[in-house]
């Protein structure tokens, strides 16, 4: 699925999130679509309505675990994700829309897997 289609999908699902999370799409600054965050995968749970990604990130703020929200499983699949592409322990990069608050926990618009595959 092309990025524009995924954006449409986000809109139609009302930026759906897992019932246990109830996050708001309004938290993210979608005018920025290419913030880069690199880290080591601690959890990569591809699911509907949204994917949960936990990376161990090291930067100026120190080393910590950061949880990200991502597209639905259906959309990541159509963008090229396959189950074997990302494993715990891999180093991956996310292209994200950051939180408006500036806190950790961006929205993962794209993923660059350890082997360079982007979806």
């Amino acid at each position: 699925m092309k990025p524009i289609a995924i954006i449409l999908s986000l809109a139609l699902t009302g930026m759906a999130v897992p019932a246990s999370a109830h996050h708001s799409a309004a938290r993210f600054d979608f005018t920025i679509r290419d913030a880069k965050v690199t880290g080591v995968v601690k959890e990569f749970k591809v699911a509907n309505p949204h994917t949960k990604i936990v990376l161990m990130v090291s930067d100026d703020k120190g080393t910590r675990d950061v949880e990200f929200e991502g597209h639905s499983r259906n959309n990541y699949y159509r963008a090229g994700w396959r189950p074997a592409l990302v494993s715990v322990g891999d180093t991956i990069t996310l292209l994200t829309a950051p939180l408006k608050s500036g806190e950790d926990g961006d929205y993962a618009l794209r993923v660059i897997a350890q082997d360079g595959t982007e979806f």
Partner: protein
Amino acid sequence: MNRTDHHIRRRLTYRSLKGCGVAVALLCLAASGAGAADSPPDFTGIWRGMRSNGNPDYVRGWPKDAPLREDAKRQRAAYHALVDPKGETPGGWCVGTGMPGSLLESGGYPMEIIQKPDQITVIYEAHTEVRRIYISGPKAHIADEDLFATRNGHSVGHWEGDTLVVQTDHLKTQLDQTAIHSANAVITTRYHLGKTEEGKRILTAKLTMTDPDFYTEPVTVTKTWVEADPETRMMLYECTEPAWDEHLDALRAAAD
């Protein structure tokens, strides 16, 4: 044509055919207009919503200036005052949009149509919303007292030539979608096939929602889909599974 008119037409068609001899049956079919219904176009396939032209006058396929009554505006404002501060949405609770949003907003996700003579099944991948459009047989004539309101309502269709005309009613009042409506809303959708310049099939739906409780006049919008590439497959949209997994984890933790 409303449902009563449609039923009358069907009865007249039957009576007129009864009066025909076998030798002229085909002529009678053509004259009664029933011939087209015997070989309707086939909508079966996987369809993708065609991108709109970004018309700023519409949100999710619905006009921003839809003629809402003042009371409906107040109800909508109260709903948004309740949910917007936390960004709550039905989708966030794995609840589908419901009509007409399921039809208008299938956007980035595909839609599959499975057509049989007596029933057309529409599956919207997002939230696995399903609409069954009954064309003939007992399910096309369910008594009102046996129906209840749902988000996607009850749909009965008939063919007018090559156009499928569907009436959807028994809808729940919904303030939680873009095209808000009352429980008395009735949606009439006219579907027909066409082709792109490249020869791909397109499906167009002209939808009119009539809801005197919420709107001062009927609202009509159009939605178009293009046949998906052959390799496109519908996927399950399992949505509540993460919540169930978390619940199981909690049960296991409590049992330890």
